[in-house]
């Protein structure tokens, strides 16, 4: 990454092909952003034969948009492993390439997570000192966080690395802290490890070891261990776990939100009295629904790479993709990856393996 600021507006490379809904939703998001947020540009990466007609059906400002054509993409069903050989021009690879060429500052994709991680590893490169990437997601919480009083906490990893060593967990903690600091303007975010008890000796060996290392790091506001119930309560700003556990927790939280919404709809339809009660509560319920709405949180950053990459949900519609682009812009402008790089570099004696194996 160059030290010199590029002589162009902040630009996002948006992989249009990866999401469940094809390029239409990504194009709708970019078209809307071109009008509402002309302070940054979007490069639409994908099949111009599909992107162009979709764009022409919408109101947009062409001065903020361009198209980078490729006729290959990775579907959700594709195994990411062979993409470099089978689909060397896949849209996610091209999006990362556009960033590595210095023409864009961050990548946004709603596509295959594995492919996004592999493409980022090749195209963007890892931050020195980071061995494994982590996918971070925001989860709605009861307590607010940081000076902006954000109603969510950061949970990582939620699926990039299935099992994590103590060293990985420590770097996840550093990255999560740096991300929360850069994106939420929270100067000293509290960080905790997810475990089955708050005591330092609770949990599998890698968690116990990570606890020991993090307790000795002066620049991380380490709050010890938290349990699952602390996540929705929001007792800390950043919760660290391995990708397997994080993914299970995240999906469960999303599922609970959807079930509550379905139950409320069901109750509304069943009895007049319940309908009356729900109508009385409607403004409060709307607030809860809004807090649980993953579309407004703008995707999950995949941390550990030298340039920001934001993974939007595969089911994302234009609103969620648009919010993911806004997060990407914020990450790029706050120089988030440099903040992480500096934080990792400050860990004393890391080159000698102080972060553990």
């Amino acid at each position, binding site marked *: 990454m160059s030290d010199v600021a590029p002589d162009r*507006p902040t630009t996002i490379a948006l992989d249009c092909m990866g999401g469940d809904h094809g390029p239409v939703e990504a194009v709708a998001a970019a078209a809307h952003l071109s009008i509402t947020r002309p302070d940054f*540009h979007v490069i639409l990466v994908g*099949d*111009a034969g599909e992107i162009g007609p979709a764009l022409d059906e919408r109101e947009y400002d*062409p*001065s903020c948009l361009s*198209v980078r054509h490729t006729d290959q993409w990775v579907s959700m069903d594709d195994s990411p492993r062979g993409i470099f050989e089978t689909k060397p021009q896949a849209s996610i690879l091209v999006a990362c390439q556009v960033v590595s060429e210095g023409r864009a500052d961050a990548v946004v994709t709603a596509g295959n997570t594995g492919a996004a991680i592999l493409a980022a590893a090749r195209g963007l490169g890892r931050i020195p000192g980071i061995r494994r990437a982590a996918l971070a997601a925001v989860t709605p919480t009861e307590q607010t966080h940081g000076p902006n009083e954000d109603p969510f906490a950061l949970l990582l990893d939620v699926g990039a690395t299935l099992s994590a060593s103590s060293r990985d967990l420590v770097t996840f903690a550093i990255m999560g802290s740096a991300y929360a600091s850069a994106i939420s303007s929270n100067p000293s975010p509290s960080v905790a490890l997810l475990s089955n008890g708050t005591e330092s000796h609770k949990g599998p060996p890698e968690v116990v070891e990570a606890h020991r290392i993090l307790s000795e790091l002066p620049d991380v506001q380490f709050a010890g261990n938290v349990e699952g119930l602390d996540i929705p309560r929001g007792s800390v700003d950043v919760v660290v776990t391995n990708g397997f556990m994080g993914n299970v927790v995240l999906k469960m939280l999303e599922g609970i939100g959807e079930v509550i919404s379905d139950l409320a709809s069901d109750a509304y339809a069943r009895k007049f009295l319940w309908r009356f009660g729900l109508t009385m509560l409607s403004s409060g319920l709307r607030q809860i629904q809004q807090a649980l709405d993953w579309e407004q949180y703008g995707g999950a950053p995949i941390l550990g790479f030298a340039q920001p990459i934001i993974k939007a949900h595969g089911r994302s519609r234009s609103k969620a993709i648009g919010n993911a682009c806004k997060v990407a812009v914020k990450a790029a402008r706050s120089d988030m990856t440099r903040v992480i790089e500096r934080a990792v570099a400050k860990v004393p004696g890391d080159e000698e393996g102080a972060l553990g194996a």
Partner: protein
Amino acid sequence: MSWRHIYRWDLDKTYLETDFESLRRLVGIAFERPEEKVNVPGSAALLRELCRDVEGLDPSRVCIISGSPRQMRRTLEKKLEIDGVRWDEFHLKPQWENLRRGRFRALRDQVGYKLPLLLRSRRDTEDVGEAPESLFGDDAEADAFIYSLYADVLAGRVDVDALVRTLRAAGAYSDAVDASVEAARSLEHADAVERIFIHLDKRTPPAFFRAFGPRVVPVYNYFQAALVLFSGGHLGAMGVVTVTRAFLEAEGHNADSLANLFQDVVRRGHLPASAMQELGLAIQELGDVPDAAEVVWKSVQRFNDLGAARQFQAPAPPPGLDYNQLLEHVRAREHARGG
């Protein structure tokens, strides 16, 4: 003397930034001084370049047809003088007369106002021969419809019966229908209209204009129009540089935003691949124009980004446009807008 090209321009929302969406703004416009009127970005620079005399070539002709009331003539003429634009014809709408005669429909009607004027203007222009035309309008009203109808009447593709049916369906008064028919009958047919530029003031999605065929070129600003006019041989490289500079210096654009605009007009099929090459070579020949050269360099990059997806549609008139269907198409959009 003959004409190398005839340019017909609308004023409000095409040449001038005009907001007549509210009564307050409408009244405000009437009292604006010439120096207070604001141009659509690049419009003055482009029109100046188009009407510039070129040694060894016939002059171009500029005909302005505006829906503004005749009472504004002095102000508007002064504004054009300030901009350094010259014109050969300047028509304004007789709104006071419409009001006095109780022709309230005519206050808003554009088809019955502009079409007979366009046809008469062509007929009455001396030595017009087969002089080609480029027309400039906007997406606020029915300019694409009116200009396309004019082009096809002029070319003899729409006969008098069809013209009458269309004008009646459009709600034109009978004297406007008669005037159009009279002008159409005495007109020397020529397939003269090359392109119809529609300034997307309201950001109407470009797909709306597909029904009019590739002769209609929706443009987001006059940088895009300048590129298309360059490819048609109506604007030199220096003219493109001048318009480019107007955007770089006065309109807050940068090389990236202009390159994006370039790609957009290529992607939509209005600019051939050869134009890129010709413009690059011409700018190289001009020498000391680093600002424009950067725009060209980034445009080449955007051009290559489109890969195999580039396609150019020559601005040929579409065969057999059904103007009654097009009228419904226009009305459906106005209805959707709440107009």
